[in-house]
């Protein structure tokens, strides 16, 4: 069997303590991104269950898969969820969602929930794009900036590098820090050229760790460039899959000279969580109107 080095750990969780049968609201946010999908279920204002899974070839199936993983072993069924909001790149194509809201608004809202009203700057490092977001104390977006079409500096680029070097993607960050001296970052901004550059470096005798360090450092450098254009206010948080890559995160922190505030339970669910919170608002609003 061939090893798929790009595969990151898919995870799911649900709270053993919450009895959803007694809840006033049961809502869900489904974030179908270009690489990963999340479903977050909220019971009243608490996170009840969530999952991170790989996005498939189409949005409806990916949404369905994420939702069913989150519901797994909870006894809850899709019918028990009173309102669903879709977000992410596939948001317009999530059949069970009552409304679609962009991942930019959802990430800010989700980060605000996990990090509290002090969160002012969010860096979302997604599968195919990067977003620098500013928000107010309620988690409402006040400004944002996105990278252009290029996939370098994103999760997809990291997957390509993990495959090339045959290093499991979850080990990339740690290995990249295990170098005696920080190498020069790779210079290419395009993921395809960066790959060619990495091959060249390996041929000239660099170790895998050095190449990974050079790649993580290049990624961090580009992200910092984007963040500096929008400006950074404290507290600063990182969401999305790359928030779990210590090699990139620590280099971003070093360049910015500011620590990212850790988010729990999972920085990757920020979009889905924000969508679930919007779903709750929409549900309460519709009940009030009725």
């Amino acid at each position, binding site marked *: 069997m061939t090893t798929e080095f790009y595969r990151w750990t898919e995870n799911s969780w649900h709270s053993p303590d919450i009895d959803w049968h007694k809840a006033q609201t049961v809502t869900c946010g489904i974030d179908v991104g270009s690489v990963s999908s999340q479903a977050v279920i909220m019971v009243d204002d608490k996170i009840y269950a969530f999952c991170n899974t790989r996005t498939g070839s189409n949005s409806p199936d990916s949404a369905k898969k994420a939702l069913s993983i989150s519901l797994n072993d909870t006894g809850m069924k899709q019918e028990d969820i009173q309102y669903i909001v879709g977000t992410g*790149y596939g948001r317009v194509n999530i059949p069970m969602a009552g409304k679609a*809201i962009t991942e930019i*608004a959802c990430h800010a809202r989700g980060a605000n929930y996990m990090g509290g009203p002090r969160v002012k700057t969010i860096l979302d490092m997604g599968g195919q*794009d990067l977003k620098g977001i500013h928000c107010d104390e309620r988690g409402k977006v006040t400004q944002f900036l996105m990278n*252009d079409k290029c996939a370098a500096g994103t999760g997809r680029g990291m997957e390509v590098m993990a495959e090339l070097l045959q290093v499991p993607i979850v080990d990339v960050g740690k290995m990249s820090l295990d170098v005696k001296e920080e190498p020069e970052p790779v210079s290419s901004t395009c993921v395809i050229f960066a790959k060619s550059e990495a091959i060249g470096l390996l041929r000239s005798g660099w170790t895998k760790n050095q190449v990974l360090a050079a790649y993580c450092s290049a990624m961090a450098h580009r992200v910092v460039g984007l963040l500096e254009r929008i400006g950074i206010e404290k507290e600063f948080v990182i969401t999305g899959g790359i928030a779990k890559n210590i090699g990139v995160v620590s280099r971003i922190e070093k360049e910015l000279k500011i620590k990212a505030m850790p988010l729990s339970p999972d920085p990757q669910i920020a979009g889905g969580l924000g969508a679930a919170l*919007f779903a709750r608002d*929409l549900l309460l609003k519709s009940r009030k109107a009725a």
Partner: protein
Amino acid sequence: MGAIEKFQEVLATRHQYAQDWKKKHNGKVIGWLCSYSPVEIMYASGMLPVRILGSHEVQDVTDRYLFPTVCPFSRDALAQGLKGRYNYLDGITMARTCSHVQGTYDNWKNYVPTPFKYYIWQPNHVQSPRAIPLMVREYKGFIAALEKFTGKKITDEALNKAIELYNKNRRLMKQVYEFRKQEVPPITGAECMEMVVASQLMDLAEHNKLLEELLKELPNRKLDRNHGLRLMMIGSEMDDIVFVRMMEELGCTVVIDEHCTGSRYFWDEVKLEKDPLTDIAARYVNRWVCPAVSAEFKPRFDRVLEHAKNWKVQGALVYQQKFCDPHEFDIPHLIKMFKENNIPTLVLEFDVTIPFGQFRTRIEAFLEMLELELV
């Protein structure tokens, strides 16, 4: 068929329109590049001036002629010539503004068979006091060449008539723009863009009649749509109506614009003060300036802000054609000016084809940001 539908039809069948015009009038058609080209003179020569625009399709025919770092609009426009879509043109001209579109002109001249070719030199610094006499001299050369080509003299009377026609067109389009000030605009930004682009493709005698019809129709026109937030669009060349339509379907209306397929192209009239050529030259010198011919951004910015305020915009979409340096240099200052006036901005970089999914996300997120309460 209403006026707007007619504009849409002309846009969709622009090449057929020009060829039909040729047949009907037993006349000639001249293509122009860049909105600094003196259309009044072309019209006075008896030719139909049509603006050369791109088709927003993926193409690879220009790679042998222009670097990929030339702006997508200039490449797209050249592609139309290389593909033979403008084979009916009797002539082509441009007034010198930016190097990219000049690349389009130079290659067109050499590789797209067109009988009449004339390049109008224009100073890079149009605001110079020496610009008007210089441009008059250039225009005289252009007129002599046109007269030789058509065999017809361009009289002052013909020039005055053309000025009158274009001025009327400008006035009527401004009146249409006034309707966009309404709380619920009876015309969308995409429709206005269709109107302006049609004015660059049609015989203005006909366009003016349609505008008069439109102005009668607008007071009672009601659109079955959510007008949403009021936006301004600012940038260089922009005739991607599909994009504007997509944008307006997301819950906004473009109520005012500042680009060369919109207000910046037609806003200023020719003031009748001296002789026709001097008046025309003065119009192009003093018109709403394009950053390609001026390093000073204040005159442009003052107008942009005035329009943003008068049309009560809630946000501004600043777009640029990739690699368009003159506009790109202005953008940081534009953003700053809007910020100081509490108007949020969104910047997008355009290519020949636009990544709709990603742009849709940005526009939606921008609109969500502008909404006071999202939910």
